[in-house]
């Protein structure tokens, strides 16, 4: 009964002695999300040619609200204003991509790319390397490596494991939430008695509400991890 849930469309490509496997659905859906975001940005940019004195139109007000949300709720948690200004595009892009890819699952036959562990784990690794890079740039190489043997040298394995566990738990959280929602939905679709109302409501709940919360939490945790890596 649970057979078709885990099935995937995998493409195998072998170049020489290397062989790669791609999840086709995830790649196509990621490209659709990217195309949506680019088209949205290009069309919204057209309405931004206004003077400051003029009354802002609707699109501009919407964009202002969005940027205020990301600035006020996410990047204001950074310890310094300079870091917030530098990382605002990164955090906003992360937030928008995850938000749109979570929301796209409410369209029938579309699957969110964040349902795939490869996508979320690459986001986790991205945030991990960003945090290490900013930590090295802020503190210098010597102080960065000295941070691993603080407060005591025997804490070194604990600190290393703590750093490695961050991207793992970060990516598993998004993946688990999205995949768990998808499994709940497909189980609900299987029962004939609940075939209409319950799946629609659940789909909206998991797609819109959970999707927004998870996108927010993911970018908030990215901010927190980069901040912790830079500060301590």
């Amino acid at each position, binding site marked *: 009964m649970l057979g078709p849930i885990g099935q995937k469309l995998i493409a195998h490509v072998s170049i020489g002695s290397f062989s790669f496997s791609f999840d086709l659905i995830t790649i196509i859906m990621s490209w659709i999300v990217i195309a949506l975001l680019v088209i949205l940005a290009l069309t919204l940019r057209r309405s931004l040619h206004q003077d400051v004195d003029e009354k802002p139109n609707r699109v501009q007000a919407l964009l202002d609200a969005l940027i205020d949300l990301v600035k006020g709720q996410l990047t204001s*948690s950074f310890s310094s204003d300079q870091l917030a200004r530098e990382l605002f595009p990164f955090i906003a892009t992360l937030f928008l991509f995850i938000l749109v890819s979570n929301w796209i699952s409410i369209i029938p036959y579309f699957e969110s790319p964040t349902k795939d562990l490869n996508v979320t784990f690459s986001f986790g690794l991205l945030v991990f390397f960003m945090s290490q890079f900013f930590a090295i740039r802020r503190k210098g190489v010597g102080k960065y490596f000295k941070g691993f043997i603080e407060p005591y040298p025997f804490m070194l394995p604990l600190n290393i494991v703590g750093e490695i566990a961050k991207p793992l738990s970060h990516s598993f*959280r998004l993946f*688990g939430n999205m995949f768990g929602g998808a499994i709940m939905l497909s189980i609900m679709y299987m029962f004939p008695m609940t075939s209409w109302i319950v799946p629609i409501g659940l789909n909206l709940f998991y797609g819109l509400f959970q999707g927004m919360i998870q996108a927010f939490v993911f970018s*908030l945790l990215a901010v927190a991890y980069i901040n912790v890596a830079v500060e301590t």
Partner: protein
Amino acid sequence: MLQEAQNVVSQISGADIATAAKYIAAGICMGIGAIGPAIGEGMAAAHALDGMARQPEMEGALLRTMVLGQAITESTGIYSLLIAIVLLFVI
């Protein structure tokens, strides 16, 4: 009666028992694993609500910290979900 029962028992193979154990284990894993995060998130929400009722002007910061804490609390539940998924689909 006894003969029928013996026939039924002889038809059950090891693979059937393994499948049954898999489903039962996934159910127990998810059921027990959901208790801890539920209690933890409820406590976080309750205390955040206390703080908001006492100081309504701190609502934004409290909400952000509450969501962050709940997201971290949630990871144990997510781990049990992953183990349940592995039990159901991979093993």
